[in-house]
């Protein structure tokens, strides 16, 4: 599984530019599903048919990652940019990026080494990308091109670190479950969604098309276990977090109960999650059409939306076990 994780987290795929990561995921899931298609917004929808009269379950993991999009190429070939998704300028200075065509870049700050650089934080419009070009004409990328961050995947003992654990780790969990699940009474729609980071836009249209009777998002969540962290009752290594609420969604109480009792019955450690900032694809699924009971399994993650997002492999394995148990048993909400 770690090899698959490495391949997924190192792939390119900022919001709106998911075709490369989409092709990788399609290739991984194709042997395990009955139907596979891509919708108008680029969502990859993989259906594994159930054996009986179960539910239609949508399991959403988003393929897109936060990134930057070029807004201007100046005369000397430096690029100005805007964020795709929640990117803090604090995480950018000195970072490296890669574009769809392979072009690499370094992020510079106009104020670097100036006397006041130590006392203020960078603003987005003071930053630029240097791709080594010397003029606008010879710059290998242009306005509208998007880039993702470059960081190798690393393992620190049981901790895994990468640029896009959010949310490729969930893609890996979904694929692992899909490959090993055997039969299920339910029709399982594994959806690898687009444009989550800019407002859960892919999940919105995918849910409309699928009309699921139950929705589950798989996503990372923040933790409260680092030095002087904002208090939050989720820690790395204590199992998947069952979302009760975040700033965009109140999980369906029946779904929360189903997840917790299933975890307890299977002896899988889990935590309850209340997240004060951010939301997931579950928000879009829940309010699709006439409404869908929805919830979210969260993978605890440190340093979310930085180029070094950290998860615990034990949490990943327990998330696989929990999702598998949920998708193969009967459901009473």
């Amino acid at each position: 599984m770690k090899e698959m994780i490495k391949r997924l987290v190192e792939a390119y795929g900022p919001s709106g530019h998911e075709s490369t990561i989409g092709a990788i995921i399609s290739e991984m899931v194709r042997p395990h599903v009955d139907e596979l298609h891509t919708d108008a917004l680029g969502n990859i929808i993989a259906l594994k048919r159930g054996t009986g009269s179960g539910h239609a379950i949508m399991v959403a993991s988003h393929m897109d990652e936060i990134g930057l999009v070029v807004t201007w190429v100046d005369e000397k070939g430096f690029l100005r940019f805007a964020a795709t998704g929640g990117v803090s300028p604090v995480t950018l200075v000195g970072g490296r990026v890669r574009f769809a065509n392979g072009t690499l870049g370094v992020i510079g700050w106009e104020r670097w080494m100036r006397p006041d650089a130590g006392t203020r934080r960078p603003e987005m419009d003071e930053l630029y990308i240097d791709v080594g070009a010397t003029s606008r004409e010879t710059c290998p990328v242009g306005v509208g091109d998007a880039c993702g961050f470059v960081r190798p995947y690393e393992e620190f003992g049981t901790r895994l670190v990468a640029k896009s654990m959010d949310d490729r780790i969930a893609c890996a969990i979904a694929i692992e479950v899909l490959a090993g699940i055997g039969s299920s009474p339910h029709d399982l729609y594994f959806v690898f969604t687009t444009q989550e980071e800019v407002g859960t836009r892919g999940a919105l249209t995918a849910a409309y098309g699928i009309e699921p009777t139950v929705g589950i998002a798989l996503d990372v969540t923040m933790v409260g276990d680092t030095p002087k962290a904002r208090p939050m009752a989720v820690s790395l290594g204590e199992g998947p977090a069952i979302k009760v609420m975040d700033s965009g969604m109140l999980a369906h109480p029946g779904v929360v109960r189903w997840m917790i009792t299933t975890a307890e019955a299977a002896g899988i450690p889990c935590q309850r999650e209340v997240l004060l900032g951010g939301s997931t694809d579950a928000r879009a699924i829940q309010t699709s059409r006439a409404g869908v009971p929805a919830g979210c399994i969260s993978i605890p993650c440190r340093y979310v939306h930085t180029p070094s997002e950290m998860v615990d492999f034990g949490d990943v394995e327990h998330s696989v076990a929990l999702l598998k148990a949920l998708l193969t048993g009967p459901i009473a909400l």
Partner: protein
Amino acid sequence: MNLQAFTQARGVSGNEGAAREVILKAVQDHIDEHIVDALGNLICHKRPRRPAPEGGRAPRIMLAAHMDEIGLIVTGINSDGSLSFGKVGGIDDRVLVSKQVLVGESAVPGVIGYPPIHLIPRSERDRAPDMTKAVIDIGATDKAGAEKLASPGDYVTFRGEWAELDPTGQRTVMAKALDDRAGCAVLAELLQGDYAVDLYAVFTAQEEVGTRGARVAAARIAPDLAIALEGTICDDLPRLPEDDTSPVTRLGDGPAITFMDRSFIADRRLLNLLLRVAEAKGIPHQFKSAVAGGTDSGAIHVTGGGVPSITVAVPTRYIHAPISMLSLKDLDHTVQLVQAALYALEGGLPS
């Protein structure tokens, strides 16, 4: 010229009737049928005029331009005869001071009063005015007098007469409501052409308060793809000449193509198609070089199972102010670009 008549029609979000009438009159001879839906969208249908190439199905294309303009709404009548007001759509307080307005259906003239410079303390002169207590003065001297002229809920438009400047150069024009009567004028022009596409030209309502009209129109039409036509930010004046960083658009450089704004990310296939036809036909064009603002594409692209969408806009200086400015050359080039795209889309969206 359609644009002149369109800009002078009064149609603040939620009250687009007068603008709709003027637009319908301009387009009715070029469409097969039209409806006005529950939210006030004017939905015009023009069936394919030629069979689709190679016997394929003609794609259903939605073109959207919003009829509504930013403005004000009367919230109360004061004992001194003045009118309290709220803003409809995004308006910076700084542009309101001393502007002339027209109130209600009968277009009662008024002014947004503000103390003269003599009474502004020196310490406050370099600060934005506090418009929370500003009122509209319609010349009434007491409540009863004002009540004869206006009522709470009356919509208020800015006065922004049409003027033509630089007629032999950029063909610049100035008027209120160029955002988005410019898009409406482009769309009206496009309707005069014949296409092998199933065309739904929608003049949308309530864009300025959250793309509300486009959402329900797209749900009704369920298009295969959509193009929103807009007037967009143009910040080339005033601007420091040495500042080589992300201008949004420049007047006279052609239609602005959006790759991403706050409401949506453009479909790459449509983006590449627009760039391709612009190059092939030698139509000047530019990117909207900032991720700012939102358009009807934001609502349309997440309708139903999803709709590939893009926005093409006429660069417009001073948008969301009582008066704005654009180049008719840019407007003509916008018509040419979208027309060329419609021809290129006759076989559907390329993969």
